[in-house]
């Protein structure tokens, strides 16, 4: 298994790839940011949100799961692809109840930040689905509002693979598919505030809420108040 390293291109930029790397992994290393929501550093790839859709040799693929290969021509930052991504972000906004002004995740929220990055500035054309799921505030340190969940599954993978606990899982099918806890409610699980799965980094939106710290960092000084989502990766690029 000593396949040689190779190069391919994203939007004309030459990217170095190693055997077994996905397009996104190689792009991240090269400082080329491909928008994503369900993918998170250190977790297995899921390929569910589809925000990282790119065209590889003209075919739509998810960059987070598609293996990179020698000589492949990848398009990412085209008007067409960014329009697809904007549609997907809008779908996620309309699927749940994402009311930024009253959400404590505002400013740290990757969904909100992605909307800004993709120029989702005007009211959108989709209908609101307005879910009405029960809030789970049973746990002393953690609350769960799945009305704000975007089904990215990052908490599920983090809990399974990093915490070795399996506190979260998907239940249901289709539009009723959602994240649930391993028991009747959060208090009935062995969830702990120190778990990676409930750390501020893992939930990209305001679904998993760490009690008592919601406004410790004031609005205006939060992660995406400092810079657009993706700039950390783009900062690595040298050209």
């Amino acid at each position, binding site marked *: 298994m000593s396949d040689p390293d190779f190069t391919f291109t994203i939007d004309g930029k030459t990217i170095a790839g190693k055997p077994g790397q996905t397009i996104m992994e190689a792009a991240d290393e090269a400082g080329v940011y491909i928008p994503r929501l369900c993918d998170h550093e250190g977790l297995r790839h899921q390929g569910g949100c589809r925000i990282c*859709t790119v065209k590889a040799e003209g075919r739509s693929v998810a960059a987070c799961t598609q*293996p990179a290969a020698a000589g492949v021509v990848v398009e990412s930052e085209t008007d067409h692809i960014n*329009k*697809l991504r904007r*549609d*997907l972000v809008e779908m996620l906004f309309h699927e749940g109840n994402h009311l930024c002004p009253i959400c404590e995740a505002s400013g740290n929220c990757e969904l909100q930040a992605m909307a800004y990055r993709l120029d989702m500035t005007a009211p959108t054309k989709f209908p609101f689905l307005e879910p009405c799921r029960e809030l789970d505030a049973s746990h002393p340190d953690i609350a769960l509002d799945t009305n704000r969940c975007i089904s990215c599954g990052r908490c599920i993978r983090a809990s399974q693979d990093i915490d070795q606990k399996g506190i979260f899982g998907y239940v249901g099918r289709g*539009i*009723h*598919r959602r994240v649930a806890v391993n028991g009747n409610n959060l208090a009935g699980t062995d969830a702990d505030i120190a778990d990676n799965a409930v750390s501020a980094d893992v939930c990209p939106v305001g679904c998993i809420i760490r009690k008592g710290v919601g406004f410790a960092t004031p609005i205006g000084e939060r992660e995406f108040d400092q810079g657009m989502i993706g700039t950390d990766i783009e900062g690595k690029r040298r050209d």
Partner: protein
Amino acid sequence: MADNPDQSESANQAIAPPSAIVSICARFENDPNRMLDILLDVQDQFRWISGETMEVVASQTGLSRVQVEGVASFYSFLSQSPKGRITIRLCDDIIDRFAGLAEITGLFERELGVKVGETSADGAFSLETTPCIGMCDQAPAAMINDVVVTKLTPARAREIVAALKRGEQPEDIAHGPKDDLSPYEQAIGMVENNIRLGGDVLLGSVPKEAGLKKAIATKPASIIDTVEAAGLRGCGGAGFSTGKKWRFAAAEPSERRIIICNADEGEPGTFKDRVLLTERPDLLVEGMTIAARATGAREGLIYLRGEYIYLRAHLEDVLAERRERALLGEKILGVDGFDFDIRIQIGAGAYICGEEGALISSCEGLPGEPKTRPPFPVNCGYLGFPTVVNNVETFCHAARIMDRGADWFFEMGCEGSHGTKLFSVSGDCRKPGVYELPYGLSLLELLELAGAEEAAAVQVGGPSGTMIDRANFHRKLGFDDLATGGAVIIFSGQRNILEIVEYYMSFFVHESCGYCTPCRVGNVFLQKAIGKFRKGLANPEDIDYMRDLSATIIETSRCGLGMTSPNPILTTLENFPLVYSAVTKPTSDRIRATFDIQSAIEDARKLAKRRSHIFDEDFTK
């Protein structure tokens, strides 16, 4: 646990004692990959899967409760609330609707005293609807527990309820109370085959084991060469070269390889595999055995959709008999090292499991979610081993090709689409049923055979296929023109195209697995959009909106479901544009019809418990 107050409050709720759950799990060796079988057994015995039951199953199989719940909540035939001892599932396909489903439903509701979706207070009956159960040629149809009743009339429905209330067994009601019927006789006693035209390959006379005998006389590699040279392509709809698929699986270095038959015939309007499973099960198993020989696989699975569970005993019979005759098991036909056996995996009501990866997930005891590709199943499939998944019809064809040779098959049909194809014809025609015909015939020829003089629109390939109008009836059935997994659904000029489209979109919303955003959410938006057309609330720009949204769903979805689910809308926009423009005329007062003030204020009106002074015109009346 039996004293749990939540459970004892209703005397009619079947309480599953932990010991019973433990023994069900033990029957499947506490194997988490057999989760679907375990949960189906629990459902069967106790009529629901409670949180407590899930805890027991989880601890027995080494999973977490939420993982078990993920499976239990995914499949339509598994329930997390108690169901009746008898569950009646009315087939709610568009064909059944046009065949009088509403009247039948009303009758069941009145006679049973429950509405659709409810269970009677005494725990005796549940009444539900379910998408196409593969009986479109004999609609309206329904499942009663594990059996099927077809051609329902109000009188027959009344009779059925009366018999059930007398305590008669569903089996006896479905095929008559005869004890000595073989499983095959029971199956044909309840469901007609409706073979209208048998062709040379599958439904004509088929000598037994002729293909298998030739296969063992040759090298595995030359079996693959023959199947590839015959031009056989997958009959489930996607049309991938069968020979290539076998070649890839054979080439992947591995200790274990798996042959899976996809008998999850879920595309609405398709029922040809039902007929093959009934009439040609030996040919199917022969084809699977040849595939095993060609690829070196020793294990096989038949994934039988839950709706076809009435065929299980018949298929088990066939497998048992073949084991006795040394056609399955160790040393098949006396050949040293040729070992192959088959297990039947029953599905539980999920269209998505017809998708190759989702089917494998389901066989592994997981929710039926498609797998990330690559790797492809031929490289890394069931439990990570190289896996060949082929449709029922494909395996049957392969067995015939081995007997008669590649040239014989290749010369039938047309360029790119060789051999014959089974068409499931239903809807507004005089002779619904299965037709075996060489590829390349025109749709018009098939319509003439079926007695469909009134046809105004035909859905070729089911909802994920194409809806075409009269001007296109000359087109040829085959992979390169009108591709179909078999469904040909005929609609007369009396039918409302928008009603059909709205039904199909609701089908896709119901059947999306929910894994990826565009399919999970986008299809709901499409369904709502088509609903506006149905209600006369659409604006001309809604047509562009639907096209645009469809394009996003197709381009970004993770599997074939989302890549084809907008087809009912797109193909009718293309071929029946007037249907849409007729209901999107601008209103005379130039007010946008889109905004429906009455439904917008409905919630507020309910909360306030009074009517609106401004918007309810008849307020003073």
